[in-house]
């Protein structure tokens, strides 16, 4: 019988699988009895009841069949008896990619419902790593991993941009507190706390950094942030690339050691917490002569020790809490966030199920960076949407940035009309500032600036114009690409807010034309879109990326914070030049 000729990539996958197998993985691969008890624990199954290929055991079998064919004695001798199967083509690997990346978020809900103790997430990650090692992975994941390797963080934030943002946030804090000491220390030696964050906070939501800084200041903490090695996220964790996983955590740990920090405090990021706190010491093999904790624990301790005082009446809207899979189901971190939440809100409504049995937001496992699977993800999110709706809460709180994005997406998709926030925002809002340190608030913060708003929806144009004009800006409006380019050329605005999805020529075309025009290339651009999957229209272009990015529906406070940041940074650069 002619043996099938295997492609080079398939040969490598099989060879490397042998090296990745250990007792725990093999146990999970062989112990499945196909009882189907895991089936209804999976949010993909519940959202796709007519498609049995979403069942965890089926997905697991797509990996298991290769293992059985090459490493299991029955599978090697009688493959048809146990449905062992060999792979030979790259197309088969591509199909496997769609399963291990697109149909599973590694949430482990099936694992805790398996009577045999099969941990599907562990060997799903193994399969991801094998495919990644031969270059088969979702494009978005590859791009982000590349940034994390080469630039040091998953969002490609350059060091100067990172430091500028922290500088700007420090200025804001100093102004608010009326105290020159109220700043974000950078690379301070021998601090008690080294605070590390998710790059999403710098790029899209600097409020979370400023809220944390405010809390540290009010608690009188001896703290610092690092100028590099500050990214707690880990795309090696998502892609199964152990080398990247090791490198990322190692950078984090080595920086804390270099600074002599006594404790590494991790901002609210689910997989970041798990990667650093739980998996990092295993990946790196490093001894960590410093403590590690989530910022949730830190804030809770400040309140319990009386270092900050909070007034829960400042957060009086009904809230519910979403347990991030990595924090909760994989790290046992579910009571402390609730304890903190109960101290800073008046109306907390538990969703059901909760804690270790809570459902995935559908954005885990790196799903938010895999735009090709967005429709599948949003369909699977129906389970979470139903949970949220049942609480009748106005806000959902979570301790993970991927969950923030995924929940925002599903709330918009299912029209739930809820907000998403994190514990640091609620604590900062509830904190009682005992000394009167109200700094004069600058009225008309956008006075003197010219802003061009580009959107095909009249309501959005009206809203943005009103917000910017209320702050003193001169606003021009454009409803399509041609009008936008025409006005940009004539008026030379300081900032352009740009929608991506427009009839005719889209926002991506406008953006590229702006960047290619020497007279307009330096114009600041903030993308505002309700379709995050269209980000590729921008980031695939061979031009300098935009200065800002916001999701719709637009939060007015977030809009002003981001626009102000972009314009003030531009102003500082002009002064320097």
């Amino acid at each position, binding site marked *: 019988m002619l043996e099938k000729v295997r492609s080079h990539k398939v040969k490598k996958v099989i060879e490397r699988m042998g090296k990745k197998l250990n007792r725990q993985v093999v146990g999970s691969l062989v112990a499945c009895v*196909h009882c*189907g008890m895991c089936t209804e624990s999976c949010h993909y199954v519940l959202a796709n009841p007519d498609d049995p290929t979403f069942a965890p055991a089926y997905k697991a079998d797509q990996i298991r069949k290769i293992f059985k064919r090459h490493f299991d004695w029955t599978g090697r001798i009688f493959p048809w008896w146990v449905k062992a199967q060999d792979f030979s083509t790259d197309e088969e690997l591509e199909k496997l990619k769609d399963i291990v990346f697109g149909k599973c978020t590694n949430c482990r809900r099936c694992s805790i419902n398996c*009577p045999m103790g099969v941990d599907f997430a562990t060997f799903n990650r193994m399969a991801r790593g094998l495919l990644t090692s031969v270059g088969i992975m979702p494009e978005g994941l590859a791009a982000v991993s590349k940034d994390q390797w080469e630039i040091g963080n998953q969002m490609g934030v350059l060091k100067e941009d990172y430091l500028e943002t922290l500088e700007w946030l420090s200025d804001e804090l100093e102004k608010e507190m009326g105290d020159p000491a109220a700043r974000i220390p950078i690379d301070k030696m021998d601090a008690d706390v080294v605070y590390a964050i998710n790059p999403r906070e710098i790029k899209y939501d600097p409020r979370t950094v400023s809220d944390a800084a405010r809390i540290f200041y009010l608690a009188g903490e001896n703290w610092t942030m690092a100028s590099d090695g500050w990214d707690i996220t880990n795309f090696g964790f998502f892609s199964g690339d152990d080398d990247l996983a090791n490198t990322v955590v190692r950078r984090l740990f080595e920086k804390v050691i270099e600074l002599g920090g006594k404790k590494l405090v991790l901002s609210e990021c689910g997989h970041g917490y798990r990667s650093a706190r739980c998996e990092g010491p295993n990946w790196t093999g490093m001894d960590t002569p410093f403590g590690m904790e989530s910022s949730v624990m830190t804030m809770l301790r400040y309140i319990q020790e009386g270092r900050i005082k909070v007034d829960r009446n400042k957060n009086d809207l009904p809230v519910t809490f979403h347990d991030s899979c990595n924090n909760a189901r994989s*790290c046992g971190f579910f009571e402390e966030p609730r304890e903190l939440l109960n101290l800073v809100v008046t109306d907390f409504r538990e969703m*059901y199920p909760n804690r270790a049995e809570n459902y995935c937001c559908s954005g885990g496992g790196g799903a938010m960076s895999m735009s090709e699977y967005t429709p599948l993800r949003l369909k699977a999110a129906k389970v979470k949407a139903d949970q949220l709706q049942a609480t009748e809460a106005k806000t959902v709180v979570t301790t993970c940035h991927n969950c923030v994005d995924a929940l925002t997406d599903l709330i918009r998709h299912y029209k739930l009309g809820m907000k998403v926030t994190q514990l640091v925002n609620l604590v900062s809002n509830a904190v009682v500032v005992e000394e009167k340190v109200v700094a004069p608030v600058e009225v008309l913060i956008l006075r003197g600036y010219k802003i061009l708003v580009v959107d095909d929806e009249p309501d959005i144009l009206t809203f943005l114009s009103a917000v910017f004009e209320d702050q003193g800006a001169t606003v021009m409006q454009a409803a399509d690409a041609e009008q936008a380019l025409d006005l940009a050329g004539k008026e030379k605005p300081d900032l352009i807010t740009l929608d991506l999805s427009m009839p005719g020529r889209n926002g991506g075309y406008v953006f590229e034309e702006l960047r290619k025009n020497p007279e307009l290339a330096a114009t600041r651009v903030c993308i505002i879109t309700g379709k995050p999957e269209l980000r590729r229209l921008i980031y695939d272009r061979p031009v300098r990326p935009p200065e800002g990015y916001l999701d719709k529906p637009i939060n007015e406070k977030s809009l002003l914070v981001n626009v102000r940041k972009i314009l003030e940074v531009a102003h500082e650069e002009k002064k320097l030049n």
Partner: protein
Amino acid sequence: MPWAMESTRQKLFFYAQFVLFHLAVGASITMSFVIPYAPSLIKPMVLVRGLQGLFAAGCLIGCYRLYRRLTNPYIRQISTPDDIFSLLLLMVWLFVSIGAAPNRPDQGEGSLLTYFIMTAFFLVYVPFSKISHYLYYPFTRYYFGKSMGYRGVYPIKRGPQPTPNKV
């Protein structure tokens, strides 16, 4: 405890079947040692009838499980020939155990011979089949439990289910 797992709690009847089926299998394995080495233990008629009842229940449950495996689209999709053969084998073995339990070779050796031949066949077949899960699962449960227990996930704590309209 078993009901700490959501999948068990939501399917208690299914779980009860699982318990009964495995009790029947365990009892039959034990009987394969008792009959040759301590036959007096299996003399009381009450015990024999009880065992027969257990084996019959196990066999019926096996029939239901086979039906489920062939008709439920999720289970059918993941089933292999080994899954079906192992189940059939156990069903037949439990059925034959009903006849073997009285241990009356004077009334015909057919049941006892078939029973012991099948038991011996298991020794050969188990390492190559899914039935070997009974050897693997203590290890997988240990690894998973150790990891999750160390991180405080186990024992799983649940919040109460909200009553309708409760805020």
